[in-house]
């Protein structure tokens, strides 16, 4: 009997102790024990993503042929002569095309990328990436036949990263200036191809390579090359004949290089170089004793990625757009007693107004033309026209039946050429300056892919590309 009681007491005690242990365990148990905190560094990202190889810029040269041809027109740099992507040629454009599309004059193969052409005095200049020999190659072709005339190149490792080449050469009578995907500046003689000077912006200035490589197209203003860097210096001015550094702009805010290009304009009578950096917008003096000095800056508009370039109105304003959710904005430059001030006066999301992801909108008269990005809500991927005073409400859109991608568009007289991602070319006629009527469309390349490189036009010939091919087509009457 006692044994039974004892046994039952032991049993009860054992149960109580067991419950007590379970209760203490329950109290001490942290339900978050299994959670793993997401902290920086868990992706094993190395401290530096930079490549350490040394590049001998412009090391090699080869001439294939010489020609004695020229052209009356010129498209010598990104967005043409006047940086507006509007051709002033007087040749009439055909309003309809034959069944097979506009005649193809020549076609060449290129390395994968989006680098557009520049045209000057009978030659086409392209900064290509030669995937076989792994080299940035400034390739010069006959405008008339597409025959390669000469190339200057240097070995540099570029890995496929949404394309390899991106930047457009800037050509004058004397020099051709290129900026390679990994920040290598090369200046060559326009005719002979002789290497004049070079710079490595990462090695010399500590530039940080932008995402998906460099797309900046260098500016030549008179005899000065204006190059945005974003490393030790925000920008530099370089004598194009000698390579001598003429001025350097400090970079106190450690802003970084974007895909945007430096454009020159005038605010309140002062010549200014405007750059959309990763970090903010800056205006740099382009003349006088203070050349190269920062006149104004603002970080009120600071997207993660900036691919487009600034558009200037006649009202001392800059209109900026970009993708990745940033939308568009208007910055006004004011003259103050001590200098200048930049104020962000308008900012909107891509759903609420004019925006663009890759291509810079075209300002024609008082109207802005753009292709809204994928995150623009109902207007996504539509060609749209806005009055410059109202960036919110479009005056015309191409409609939901006519959506486009990230490809380029340019204006010639009252015609707009627009290239879709798959290389389908569209011809619009601008009516009343603010609406457009589709006249013709034709797919240029079979299985065209990523036709994003800017187009160039002179003398009735349009040069365009997809990711691996470039053609010259005749679009004149």
């Amino acid at each position: 009997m006692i044994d039974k009681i004892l046994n039952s007491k032991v049993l009860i005690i054992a149960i109580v102790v067991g419950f007590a242990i379970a209760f203490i365990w329950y109290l001490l148990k942290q339900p978050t024990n299994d959670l793993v905190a997401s902290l920086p560094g868990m992706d094993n990202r190395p401290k530096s993503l930079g490549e350490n190889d040394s590049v001998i810029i412009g090391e090699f040269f080869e001439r294939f042929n010489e020609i004695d041809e020229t052209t009356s027109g010129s498209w010598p740099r990104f967005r043409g002569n006047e940086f507006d992507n509007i051709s002033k040629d007087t040749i009439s454009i055909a309003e309809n095309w034959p069944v097979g599309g506009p005649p193809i004059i020549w076609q060449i193969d290129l390395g994968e990328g989006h680098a557009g052409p520049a045209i000057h005095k009978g030659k086409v200049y392209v900064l290509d990436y030669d995937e076989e020999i792994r080299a940035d190659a400034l390739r010069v072709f006959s405008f008339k036949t597409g025959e390669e005339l000469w190339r200057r190149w240097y070995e540099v490792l570029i890995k496929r990263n949404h394309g390899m080449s991106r930047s457009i050469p800037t050509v004058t009578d004397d020099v051709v200036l290129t900026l390679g995907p990994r920040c290598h500046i090369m200046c060559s003689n326009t005719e002979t191809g002789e290497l004049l000077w070079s710079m490595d912006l990462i090695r010399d200035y500590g530039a940080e390579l932008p995402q998906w490589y460099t797309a900046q197209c260098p500016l030549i203003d008179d005899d000065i090359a204006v190059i945005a860097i974003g490393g030790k210096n925000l920008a530099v001015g370089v004598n194009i004949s000698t390579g001598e550094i003429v001025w350097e702009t400090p970079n106190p805010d450690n802003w970084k290089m974007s895909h945007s290009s430096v454009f020159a304009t005038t605010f309140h009578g002062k010549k200014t170089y405007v750059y959309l950096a990763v970090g903010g917008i800056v205006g740099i003096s382009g003349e006088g004793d203070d050349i190269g000095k920062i006149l104004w800056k603002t970080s009120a508009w600071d997207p993660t990625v900036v691919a487009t370039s600034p558009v200037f109105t006649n009202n001392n304003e800059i209109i900026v757009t970009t993708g990745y959710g940033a939308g568009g904005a208007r910055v006004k430059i004011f003259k103050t007693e001590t200098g200048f001030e930049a104020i962000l006066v308008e900012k909107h999301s891509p759903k609420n107004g004019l925006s663009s992801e890759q291509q810079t909108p075209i300002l024609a008269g008082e109207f802005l033309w753009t292709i809204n990005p994928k995150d623009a809500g109902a207007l996504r991927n539509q060609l749209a026209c806005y009055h410059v005073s109202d960036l919110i409400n479009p005056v015309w859109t191409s409609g939901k039946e006519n959506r486009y991608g990230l490809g380029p568009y340019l204006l010639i007289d009252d015609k707009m050429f627009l290239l879709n991602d798959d290389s389908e070319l569209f011809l619009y006629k601008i009516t009343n300056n603010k609406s457009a009527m589709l006249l013709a469309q034709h797919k240029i390349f079979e299985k065209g892919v990523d036709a994003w490189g800017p187009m160039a036009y002179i003398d009735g010939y349009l040069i365009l590309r997809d990711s691996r091919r470039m053609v010259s087509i005749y679009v004149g009457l």
Partner: protein
Amino acid sequence: MSEKNKYQNRRDFVKKVGKWAVALPIAYLGYELIQKTSAQEFVWQIDPYKCTQCGQCETNCVQTVSAVKCMHAYEMCGYCDLCSGYLRQGVKERNTGAELQLCPTSAINRSFIENPYFAYTIDEELCNGCGKCVKGCAAFGNSSLYLQIKHELCVNCNLCSIAQTCPAEAIQRVPNSKAYNLKDGYKPKES
């Protein structure tokens, strides 16, 4: 006369053949109809090209957590450092800090491969099917992230509660033999 060699006149023979000629197609038609109406042979699946990433897959599935998961078409991915499916819009840094991530449950693992490539893999146990990463990838990337109903988790309701509310009508019944609308060659595990 044995049964085997029983006399059969031509009229009976034609009658018999006629009966079989009518009965066999009717029986086959019945079999086909049963096959087509059988819930076991069809499953619910998302058409990734119709999906608008509205977020209802996360909240409307009868399963907790949702049977809808993110999938990754590696053949389409750009392996970008700045991945718009992984990082929130407007971030200035690119690392694995929780405050930078778009995914509310940290279900995407990011790992460095070689300069400049990063790989992104989905932890399906953590994924709740909200589609935020898919939306980010579609807006600025290659659309390599997309949503699919995982059949080892789906209870295959007769009337799928997500399909009822899907604004894009992107969820439809598909044959079990083609249970996934894949964007690349990924083969899901047998359920």
